[in-house]
């Protein structure tokens, strides 16, 4: 059976901020409207809506997908919400892909929204409820602590220093200066600033971590025929992949994200990518912590295990490097309203591949990009590959 081709034809987003005055519905609508206006569509042209948002605890709304439906443009339409923890933002693009590729839909609007500030005083407390209610929650674990474990394991396994890792935070926060929606762009930040920031849970320091944020992003997907009537410059979905590892994260070797590799291989196979390091021109790996960008570049097979820090040190991942990584500024620079941050990476690829990324534009007319997100209990990888070439 030949596959139905799916294109991305529009994208839009809100500013990412610490505390939005808008309700979650309003954030979703701002992003949805911006995405539709970017490709000249009205809601009447949208056949179905995919919502990505997780968890309900942030907004304090049960069945949040239902609550967000009208703001996301889903009133009266087939509307479906998915989640895979922090991997949701990239996954909702895969969900929109299968909506269109199935042949049931011609135009699908994917909306990812997160309002973390509703959880007062700090969203970190919501994360207590992601742990196993019997074995883990009584220990009152904190999300920062378990990522500190993973960062430590990664550093210890490969002999990586805090200084190597801090370079990622510096790169991304500098990149974010050129992003109009960013909350933490800093042109003059240095490695010393990162290393001197407050220790949260060793080895994690404040500037190693992305901020708690509010925001929404929307992306418009269309079938080949519909896309041809909307734009003469479609960007194609070439591959999607996702993979969920066991819930027993304590049994996992945290040095390497095998589930990310499996998700990447699924997407590479679909996209016909055999040599990712040559064929992926711009990459948006998930960077809620600076070490995670390195970890994920390795899981995506774009760097050898333990060697991603060398690519950063050599400037390979700079915006004008040979493999620009997080040219948007990533979660560290633009902000991290969880699911919205993932879909922001897909939107960034759309803008980069169309040459519309303004001050963030990577040189050399990239033809193919990869966005990736990660989440749950250091457990899930989600990958989307976009490209300017129409899939076979």
């Amino acid at each position, binding site marked *: 059976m030949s596959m139905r081709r799916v294109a991305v034809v529009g994208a839009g987003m809100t500013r990412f901020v610490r505390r939005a005055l808008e309700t979650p519905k309003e954030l979703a609508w701002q992003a949805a409207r911006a995405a539709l206006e970017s490709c000249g569509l009205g809601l009447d042209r949208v056949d179905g809506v995919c919502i990505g948002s997780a968890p309900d605890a942030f907004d304090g709304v*049960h069945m949040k997908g239902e609550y967000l439906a009208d703001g996301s443009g889903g*009133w009266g339409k*087939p509307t479906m919400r998915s*989640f895979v923890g922090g991997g949701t933002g990239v996954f909702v693009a895969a969900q929109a892909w299968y909506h269109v590729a*199935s042949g049931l839909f011609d135009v699908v609007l994917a909306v990812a929204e997160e309002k973390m500030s509703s959880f007062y005083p700090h969203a970190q407390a919501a994360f207590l409820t992601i742990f196993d209610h019997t074995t883990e929650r009584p220990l009152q674990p904190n999300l920062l602590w378990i990522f500190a474990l993973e960062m430590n394991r990664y550093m210890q396994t490969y002999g990586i220093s805090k200084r190597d890792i801090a370079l990622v935070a510096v790169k991304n926060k500098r990149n974010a200066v050129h992003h109009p929606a960013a909350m933490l762009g800093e042109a003059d930040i240095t490695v010393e600033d990162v290393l001197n920031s407050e220790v949260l849970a060793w080895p994690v320091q404040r500037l190693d971590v992305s901020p708690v944020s509010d925001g929404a992003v929307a992306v418009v997907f269309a079938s080949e025929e519909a896309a041809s009537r909307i734009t003469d410059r479609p960007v194609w979905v070439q591959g999607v992949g996702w993979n*969920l590892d066991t819930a027993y994260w304590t049994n996992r070797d945290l040095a390497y994200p095998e589930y990310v590799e499996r998700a990447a291989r699924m997407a590479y196979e679909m996209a016909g990518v055999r040599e990712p390091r040559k064929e992926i021109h711009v990459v948006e790996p998930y960077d809620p912590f600076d070490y995670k960008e390195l970890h994920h570049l390795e899981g995506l097979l774009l760097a050898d295990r333990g060697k991603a820090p060398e690519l950063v040190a050599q400037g390979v991942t700079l915006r004008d490097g040979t493999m620009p990584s997080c040219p948007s500024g990533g979660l560290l620079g633009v902000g991290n309203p969880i699911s919205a941050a993932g879909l922001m990476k897909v939107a960034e690829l759309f803008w980069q591949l169309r040459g519309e990324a303004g001050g963030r534009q990577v040189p050399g007319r990239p033809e193919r990009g990869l966005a990736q997100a990660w989440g749950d209990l250091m457990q899930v990888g989600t990958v989307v590959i976009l490209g300017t070439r129409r899939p076979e």
Partner: protein
Amino acid sequence: MSGRVAIVGVGWTGFRPVSPEVSYKELMYEAAARAYADAGIDPRRDVDSFVTVSEDFHEGTSIFDEYVPDQLGAAQRPVHTITGDGLHALAAAVMQILTGRFRIVVVEGHSKASNVLTLPEITAYALDPVLNRPLGVHPVAVAGLEASRYLHESRTTREQCAAVVAKNRRHALCHPSAAYGADVSVDDVLAAEVVAAPLGRLEISDCADGAIVMVLADEPTARRLSAHPVWVRGVGWATDSPTLESRAWARAVYAARAAAMAYRMAGIADPREAIHFAEVDDTYAFKELQHLEALGLCAWGEAGRLTADGATAAAGRLPVNVSGGSLGGGHLLEANGLARALEVVLQLRGAAGARQLRGITTGLAQSWRGLPTATGAVAVMAS
């Protein structure tokens, strides 16, 4: 539609008011093991994707998808969760297979409602946090308001709603897995205490625990695996207004839209002729009537009379909720739609035991997302 999708395996456990000796993981495992045995597949080798359905607040765990892979044999495989009803997850699986990149997709839904001590309070968290929640209204009042409006506009009577309860709970007596089978009369229903006028205690379904797993496959795979695949001919889902202030209170617009989508996909022009039996949401008695009308299986305002006349009983012209529905089988939270679909599969296979219908080839399953939503889904299946 570029190909055909079939259900080739089903497994379930429950449905019981309480299940203190097993965790939700054990419920899921039992249902999955049975579904895989039914389909003759090994999940570690044969399944291309897993779709589960859950809502965080019902589970008491945020981003609950974390806890699904192990007991399904799905660790390190493509797995994702759909929030919503089981039929939404079924539709997601159908779409994945129709892309041509997935041959076998597994769908899972479950209820561990007996663990939820404060269900009304949790449901209240689904009300708009700015406009509705400050009013402090018990969420069942929303169902009461809707029932009032429906009875008024459609001229349906309380006796006709009570006939739904009597029928479904009697149907459930023939279902070994049903939690609430009983010989209840219309008078019993009308005499029960009023919970939220006009809804009486017996017109509201009680929760049950259980899990349901289904194995879906593309046509070549289905023909290889199963001598009696049940074909999913159409799926549809729709969300009407999420806000209480701007929705149609009398009519189930979401069900009408979802059905229109499913009928279009299935190539059905006249559902009354094409659909031989239906399993529809009856979490509140009036909902069964409202849904039958929205699905186009009878005229507006006609469902109550048909029910009172026995036309929707197992021996009637249009059997509805032969399984016992939610009133007789138990309200299974996110798994409600899969319970409806499960009965359609069993009937079409000729495996429904004492409640087996004769001369049927096409059935419909429909779900409602529950209070306070206006969301529903439909699946049309054929042998």
